[in-house]
């Protein structure tokens, strides 16, 4: 259940960046929004993140860059306050430290029960809205050029991990807020988004292996 929350978070972060454009929701408002969102194979950008973690007086701020490749996964590179990297693929989540050491945070192959989480994740990545709306209630709203989607878990199991997920954007997702069940709150702002080059560099591709 705990590894679950980790993987789901991974799944959702990936989803929020790369998958939402595929949404073909029954809801007309959701559909209108998703049609206006870009569906690049590769999307790069920068992020600033602010986490409010219970037990810490001050928010934890970080910045960095990321790559979302629809066929592969996500490379999340933190630059400040210290360098580190997280690579999320279908099978596992891998962290890499400054000194080059890596650690597998989670391996779905060793936890067969979690494989179906990945199944959901890929259902989501390939734009299978049925899977999404079977897990979350989706509420959509428009504000001028922009839009907002608010996702709340349907199942009590999922509600143990998340209170809500909110994403805002226009042609791209611009802002994400994750509120966990334990009241930890993460806000991520995306900037300098770019679809070019449309293929992964050799260095990026290597990181997914």
């Amino acid at each position: 259940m705990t590894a679950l929350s980790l993987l789901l978070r991974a799944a959702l972060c990936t989803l929020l960046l790369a998958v939402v454009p595929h949404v073909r929701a029954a809801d007309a408002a959701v559909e209108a929004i998703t049609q206006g969102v870009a569906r690049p194979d590769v999307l790069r950008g920068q992020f600033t993140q602010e986490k409010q973690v219970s037990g810490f007086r001050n928010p934890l701020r970080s910045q960095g860059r990321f790559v979302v490749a629809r066929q592969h996964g996500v490379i999340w590179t933190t630059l400040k306050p210290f360098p580190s990297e997280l690579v999320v693929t279908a099978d596992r989540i891998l962290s890499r430290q400054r000194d080059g050491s890596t650690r597998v945070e989670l391996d779905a192959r060793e936890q067969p029960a979690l494989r179906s989480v990945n199944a959901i994740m890929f259902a989501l990545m390939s734009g299978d809205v049925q899977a999404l709306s079977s897990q979350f209630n989706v509420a959509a709203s428009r504000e001028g050029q922009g839009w907002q989607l608010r996702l709340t878990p349907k199942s009590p199991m999922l509600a143990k991990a998340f209170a809500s997920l909110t994403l805002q954007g226009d042609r791209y997702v611009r802002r994400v807020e994750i509120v966990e069940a334990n009241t930890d709150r993460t806000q991520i702002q995306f900037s300098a988004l770019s679809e070019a080059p449309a293929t992964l560099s050799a260095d990026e591709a290597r990181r997914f292996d």
Partner: protein
Amino acid sequence: MTEPAVPRQARGLHRHWRWLGLAWLLVLLALGAQQWRLWSEAPRIDTDILALLPQDAHDRLISDVTRRIADGSARQVVVLLGSSDGAAAHRAQAAFAAAMARDQDSALLVPSGSVEGWFDEARTFYAPYRDRLLTPAQREQLQQAAPEALAGQALATLYGPMGAPRLTQWRQDPLSLWPQWWQQQAAGSGLRLGEDGLLEAEGKHWAALQFDTAGSAFQLDGEQHLQGLLARAGQAANAAAPDLEILHAGVPLHAEAAAVQANREINTIGWGSLAAVLLLVWLAFRSLRPILLVAASLLIGCGVALAVTVLVFGKVHVLTLVFGASLVGVAEDYGIHWFASRQAAPAERRGALLRHLLPGLCLALLTSALAYLALGLAPFPGLRQMALFSVVGLAAAFLTVIFWFPWLDGGTVRPTRFSHWLGGTLLRWPRLQGRAQVALFVTVALALAGAGMSRLQSNDDLRSLQSSPPALMAEQIRLSQLLGMPSPAQFYLVQGADEAQLLQREEALTARLRGLAQQHRIGGYRAISDWLPSPQRQREDAALTARVEPAVLAAVSDVVGEPLPRPAYAAAPLRAEAFLASPASQPFRHLWVGAVGGQMISVVMVDDLSREDALATLREAADGLPGVRWVDRTADFSQLLKHYRTLMGGLLLVGVALIFAALWLRYRRQAWRVFAPTLIAGALTLGLLGLFGQPLQLFNVLALMLLLGMGIDYGIFLVEHQGDPSAWLAVCVGAASTWLSFGLLGLSATPALRAFGLTLLFGIGLVWLISPLFRPPPPRPAP
């Protein structure tokens, strides 16, 4: 000259005989009243297969542990609902639970506590000990990794977009060690719930529901209450999810199936035999009184047998009842003999008739009782119950006949056409004349028997006692594999001088088992030391985290710019007493046996024994580990069945020799006439069993013993009463009803009883046909 003496003697006999009859009535009434009280207290029917098996006298401990493990799941019923669609499985689960709750029989099965509720309780309980609960991989990592690298990881996960899963405040567990510990526990301990609460296996999503039988509401009255309840709930679930696959398992379901089946078999065998016996009695005597009296003797016999069995054993096993039902076909002999003899004797000579019959009837009771008692020689409580039931039943029927029949049977018993005809068949029956015929017959019979016996194969599988319907067994096995349920019959027994040594020895074992599980050579295992590490390991692990974590906290504190002191944990290791008293230990308590004979004992269970070499692998895993013993109850019992099959086989031969010696003393050169039919019938029976592909097991051998005890009687009668049609009538009616009863027992779904019934069906039938062939030549007509 003795004319006046007879009535006086008869009167004397009558007088004190009547007192005895009255005393027997009082005994029966007292027994009836006592039983009434006993049965109204609690049900006395036992369906547990373990109750049939011996408690090893030399190893009480293993028996106790086996019993404990069995009791641990004795009330559990598990239901799995599988669908290719997870949402459908969830819908089905809800519909199933709702249907169970509103059913008229809902009190029978109450939902067990959920895993989630347990997890919350357990997490709270373990929280103060978090610093000393490490997985082997974590232990290795903390020992080897550089503090800076660990700090880097902690920072990365803290700042990462998805954070790390946490079960506590971050400061309590800066390296996120605890979630991994729980994850490993969950993976290894059968608490395999997927992300949506469903199990994933064989391409389906399975929702699990667990129920317990409510003790007071659970009854074994031959009705399918539980199956009915589950079937109705299953229909509701099916309506919610059409492609649903439903699996049930649990000891109560087997108990109910056994009770339903036994109920049916007792009716078929018991009432079937009774009807047949009474029909034969009616045909032979054409009057109501013999029917009523024979029926009374049989019912009293069975009733007293049941009462005494319950008095001695506390409970009576359903298989005893099924076997006991065949007693009807044996215990009718005494009544039949009385009436067969009465056909020729007037009412006023009843006293003399009784004196005349008594020695023969006593002898018949004695030989039959001895044959049944031989069943009890093997130390199987089940067989001893059957032996006691049978002997007491025979004795009670016998006493009823000798005490009451002379008293109640006051009318005349006329010979009938049927009895005349049946008695007369003896004269027309072929007879072996001269050595050549006898030699030819014996040679042909033995050749046939030998041909069949060469195909005979022995089988000592414990499952011959298992009577559960194959479909239910298949479901149980499938569900156990899906859920990774541990085997109740194979386990490790771990012993130690004290708690600390015991847990350390367990840890040595589980280290090996983990290795085997990683190589996929075995499934998982359940050990209490996974949830209650040895005090030594707890101290070592606490020292390790106390060395590493402060450095990590300091490094993170530098980056975030606020102080992060390490919180305090429990001062002393978690001990068994506290653990066992908490709800957290609830799912694992059956693994802890506790103090026995100055030693501390625990059990380590294993699952998924489907690999062919799994048992050998597991047995080897205990090699060289002090205080660890691999126990395979199935193999033990099969070994035991084999041991007693050969032992009883030997005893059978001894019995043959003894009986031949006894017959020789009485009949000298005629002894072979008494003896040959039973011996040839026994050999042919073995041959037939071989031809029909029946395996030879302990129960066939026991049946042959019974055949020896009963078959000899027919020979004795025919030699004792040479050419007497009434003796042949008694033999025919007796043999026919015995044959029928065991034939009906041969229909039993329990392989052991079927083997018993089939052997006697062949054996009794053959002795009956062969005995007259060996009868002595008719006495020369008097000049």
